[in-house]
């Protein structure tokens, strides 16, 4: 599947296209199929996302999982600072990245 990701213009936070808007949570991301370029052009022009691009991912019973480790780190946060990730209370969250 194809996901769209970028950064919020003002905060720089990593965001994911959920079909309607840009979410902070990769779990919300949807498969954009062949529509990546169209959505990216529209959303970038409206400044709702910055430096956005499409990535490969898979989806199973555990949810969406970006194919590359770089995107999984973007989705969670730095593995060396669990307190600064999106799931600071989940000690196993870092394992999802690896």
């Amino acid at each position, binding site marked *: 599947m194809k996901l769209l990701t970028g950064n919020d213009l003002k905060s*720089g936070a990593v965001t994911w296209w959920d079909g309607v808007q840009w979410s902070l949570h990769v779990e919300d991301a949807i498969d954009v199929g062949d529509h990546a370029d169209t959505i990216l052009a529209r959303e970038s022009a409206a400044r709702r996302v910055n430096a956005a691009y499409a990535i490969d991912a898979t989806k199973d019973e555990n949810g969406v999982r970006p194919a590359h480790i770089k995107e999984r780190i973007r989705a969670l946060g730095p593995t060396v600072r669990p307190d600064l990730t999106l799931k600071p209370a989940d000690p196993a969250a870092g394992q999802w990245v690896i």
Partner: protein
Amino acid sequence: MYKYDTYDQAMVDARVEEFRDQVRRRIDGHLTEDQFKPLRLMNGLYLQLHAYMLRVAVPYGTLSGAQMHALGDIADKYDRGYGHFTTRQNIQYNWIKLDEAPDILADLAKVEMHAIQTSGNCIRNTSSDQYAGAAADEVTDPRPYAELIRQWSTFHPEFSYLPRKFKMAVIASDTDRAAMRLHDIGIQIVRSDAGELGCAFYVGGGMGRTPMIAPLINPFVPLDQFITYAEACLRVYNRHGRRDNKYKARIKILVHELGKEEYTRQVEAEFAHLLTQNIEPPLAELERIKAQFADPGFETGLSDQLDRSDPDFALWVDNNCVTHKAPGYIAATISLKPIGGIPGDASADQMRLMARLATQYSFDELRVTHAQNIVLPHVRKDQLYALWQALDEAGLGTANLDLVGDIIACPGLDYCSLANARSIPVAQKIGQRLAAKEQQIGELKLKISGCINACGHHHAGHIGILGVDRKGTENYQLLLGGCEGADTSLGQITGPGFDEDGIVDAVEKATELYLSTRAEGERFLDTYRRIGMAPFKEALYG
């Protein structure tokens, strides 16, 4: 320390307001990201994996207490309570908001700091010896010359769009503590047989994907001509450096392809021409700068004795402190490498504490080292124990300078958009694995980069580690035999790479071989140079 004059302050203040307007125009849509990106990069603002990252210049690594205190306050006010000191003697903040970036620059300007030319294809912040002004072995304090380079290179119109970024280092000792020969231009201030000071120019060094050791192109440029000579070096590079291929655009490639002799010939011809143009800053300006780097008021008649009855303190003194040029004083390094910690990171509270301790114990001076530590350069020996107690209480008393736990590591894939693999977890695991043996192992400089750009200086590590992307998974190459300094050498890859746990095992095996093989007084590097790669390969892969 150098204090801004009205010109310095006006330039920095104007730059803040210019960037404030650029940010406003980006947010309201008058600038696209493609238009804005080069503008933000000129102000040190990157877009990294999780957020914007701001790189702040620390000229030649020198900070006042007030400046370090401000860096701590910025970490609290605009970031997430910490900062990362880098191998370029700078500091980076990892969680910056675009609309707050101009306010950060304004706060920096209040303490005579900025982020100008910390990115882009221009002359970057000049590196220097972290013990400058304190070292017993220097022929002069190199910082006034580094400051003159800062003033010459800042907003230099001819060198704002070079083929590629450009890094300079200035030292004034035979012992190179700034990896001088791994810079685009390395300058060593030397004293001639006649007693005159001049500059030895080394040009064309660097790390990255094509590591090279800079050759000496001129052993003695008079001090009153050294800016002109640097200008000549840059002009030849700007004229012939490749702009068609960013991987071949650094000056090291030009010097290599032209050959040292031809490059030098062209520089000398340009230098001869420039001497007729009178571009050298007036000596009065250099004297004005030098006056601001006068020695602080060292007291005389102080004892050189230390009470070493506390063994933990004695260990810290032996590992982290070096001889000072003034009797009764010592230069102390604060390790930012606690066991299992993140190399180079300091919390806001730690930064403010180091600022206070610098004011109390070190004439209000601190230095950032290229090994990602902090130096208090002028500490009275009779106050050293009190200083160490304060540091130790704050988790800053680790006694591991230049030991295997004193690992240089780039931010790696945990933060950096260029990285292929994580550096920090590898550093943490190695530090924890070998902590109990590090005193036994002795000097061992271990350096980790998360990609070929080599921000972690892996080519120059006695043991170097390079993280690569192997079909979407992290893999780590091991290098042995690198070294910065007077005997600079580049590390050689041992063989096939390892996974994250495998590279930790491999480093341990290499140290075990060293311990079982070393001759009396040999460091790891000495043993490697004596016995060569083969025994290490056998230990790792046999």
